[in-house]
């Protein structure tokens, strides 16, 4: 139940960021993605096109603005490929 609510909120957040989030991929993982009832925070990984975009998103996203505290990981696409981040973190894409 929690997962769907969080995904909806995160998609709204991504859209609200406009050009800052353009070309990014948002991936949910951890306890919320598994829909665990006692999840304590939201694990979100955002893949970015550049360092500047990652830094701008860090500044723009309020980790306290959602239903649960947001644990945010930001990395460039090439870094994610290098460490196979999507697979090893068992994340699921939620945006776009």
């Amino acid at each position, binding site marked *: 139940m929690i997962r769907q609510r969080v995904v909806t909120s995160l998609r709204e957040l991504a859209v609200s960021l406009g050009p800052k989030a353009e070309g990014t991929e948002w991936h949910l993982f951890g306890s919320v993605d598994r829909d665990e*009832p*006692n999840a*304590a*925070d939201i694990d979100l990984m955002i893949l*970015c096109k550049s*360092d500047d975009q*990652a*830094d701008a998103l*860090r500044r723009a996203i*309020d*980790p*306290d603005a959602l*239903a*649960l*505290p947001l*644990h945010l*990981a*930001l*990395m*460039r696409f*090439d*870094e994610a490929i*290098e*460490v196979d*981040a999507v697979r*090893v*973190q068992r994340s699921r894409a939620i945006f776009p």
Partner: protein
Amino acid sequence: MSGGATNWVADKLVTKESLEVVGRTPENFLVVRSKDGPTFLVAALGLQDVIGAADVEPLFAGATKPQFVVNVPSKTLWSGAAIDRIHAASAAFGTLGDVSRAAYTENAGSYRDKNMGFFINAMKQHSNVSSVAYVYDTVFKADRKSGASLTVAVIDAYNMSAEDVRNAKARFGHFDVVVKSSSHGSITNQADAAAKTMGAQALTFGELMGRLAK
């Protein structure tokens, strides 16, 4: 104590299925209860930048003391002095997420961040380390028997990215070593390069243990 922060925390906690706020003390501490556990008192602060010892001292001045101190916004740093004061009062500190985790411990005041506790113990038990002190909640100064002291920033990350390193620098200032908390995952080449440009090293836990030795 911040009334606005207390109300914000209370509003957030009541949305959690497993926790309930059953009252407030005259000091405006929240009386929180997990569904299957005892009640505990939560003091809420609303401080920006860095929380100092003087900010938490008044919370423990009266007869009624909190078992947990939470601050909003969560990105505010807890100074080592504030942490030491809270722990000296057998209390815990952290974010709203930590309140939930503390609720599932037998005594909420004994709650400690699992990852940080692991790093503190490991560094303290290192044969070349004489003492470990909090600089901030995730940054430590390790005094060594041989060699200069090292400032170690712990990043709560499965994979450490260059942004993690830049963000650590922006938040904490100087550090000698940035280490990721998870024993799984990797450090990206870009993270390694970013740390080097700062005159620091990006290390795994095992590499940190080696660095403490030399």
